[in-house]
């Protein structure tokens, strides 16, 4: 959504002790938890991730330091193998999967036209229970804004799904990584609850 500061102020609001918006290697290495929010179009996003070496830092945080990591929206899309956006862009392949355009015309099950981008509050079906879902009922509405959607290859990683003409992956989890297509920082009380769960999360791995 164009905005990293929204995530920072939401985390501060739910009690994160110190939130830094940074691409500084040392600060990210020293952090207890890492949030990986993506913004804008995937090609620019990926080139910035690589230029700033955030891809390496993410790998270190995930597999060496075993820190809790939360990826949001384009941040989640960047984790996939490939995105159709901008004529096709290779992504980080942290989680094998693809990012596709919703396609037009898009329709719901009753044949009604759906607008793209998918913008607004949709119900997220909890596919698997997870510590980040604590206190959040099934079918809670979260705020989405995206024209491309994720499908991971390994379906056991899907923790939440959303129906918008297609069945899209709304949330994924693997070990110390959690990812959401929706914006918890813009999803009012439910989103704040998820962020609170994230800052209190101690992954098992």
């Amino acid at each position: 959504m164009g905005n990293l500061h929204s995530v920072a102020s939401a985390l501060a609001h739910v009690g994160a002790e110190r939130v830094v918006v940074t691409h500084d290697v040392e600060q990210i290495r020293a952090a207890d938890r890492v949030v990986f929010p993506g913004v804008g179009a995937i090609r620019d996003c990926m080139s910035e991730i690589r230029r700033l070496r955030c891809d390496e830092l993410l790998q270190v945080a995930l597999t060496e330091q075993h820190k809790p990591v939360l990826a949001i929206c384009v941040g989640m899309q960047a984790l996939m193998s490939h995105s159709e956006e901008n004529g096709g862009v290779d992504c980080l392949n942290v989680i094998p999967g693809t990012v596709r355009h919703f396609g037009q015309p898009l329709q719901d099950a009753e044949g009604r036209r759906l607008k793209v981008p998918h913008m607004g509050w949709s119900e997220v079906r909890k596919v698997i229970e997870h510590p980040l879902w604590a206190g959040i009922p099934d079918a809670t509405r979260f705020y989405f804004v995206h024209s491309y959607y994720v499908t991971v290859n390994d379906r056991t990683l899907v923790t939440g799904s959303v129906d918008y003409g297609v069945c899209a992956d709304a949330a994924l989890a693997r070990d110390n990584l959690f990812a959401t297509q929706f914006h918890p920082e813009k999803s009012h009380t439910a989103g704040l609850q998820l962020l609170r769960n994230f800052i209190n999360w101690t992954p098992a791995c």
Partner: protein
Amino acid sequence: MGLAKRIIPCLDVDNGRVVKGVNFVGIRDAGDPVEVARRYNEQGADEITFLDITASHEGRETTVHTVEQIAEQVFIPLTVGGGIRSVDDIRTMLNAGADKVSINTAAIHNPELVRQASQRFGAQCIVVAIDAKRVADVDGLPRWEIFTHGGRKPTGIDAVAWAVKMAELGAGEILLTSMDRDGTKNGFELGVTRAITDAVDIPVIASGGVGNLQHLVDGILLGGADAVLAASIFHFAEYTVPEAKAYMAERGIEVRL
């Protein structure tokens, strides 16, 4: 259950105060924008729109500060519009905490701004605001034109064609205000709302003229809008956001409760 229709309270802000012109005369003070925004956040509004109607340069700096304060306390999407002329203006507002930026007159003077902004920041944060007014019918069909300067200055641009062009240039959403209805409390201009929602694939927010809750329902069921924007009915506590949502839900509209 699908996507909820959105209710968006709108704050028209002049020199740091929420105001609302009633029929364009007699500006009524509706309070401190940070307080007002926080109240709507608590009430369960789906988004908030902040339109800066301040003319002076000093006032615009106040606006940036106000947006920062709202963004720290409001955890729903915040759109900021009014006086946005350049990519730099957009960046300033996004950095201040806006999630989306609404472009109006600048898009008319320089449509390329919409394309540049969309490529730079993503379509999801670029809203194009259209102020439309009914003009003489053409071949027996209604026609709406874009007007600037608060509805006083015609541009000759067809509102429906303009919405289509803006979507093609990369707008992520259209904020459609009927200048015939704004401030009247007579309800949305449903003709232009329906014409534009049918013509574009991006979401459309209906604005201008809400005086009661049935108007919100009509904007969605008859106008086809994806979201409805209102100001005075909420500012002066005629209705709360939960009352509006309950009314809409009773009439079969999907809302976030």
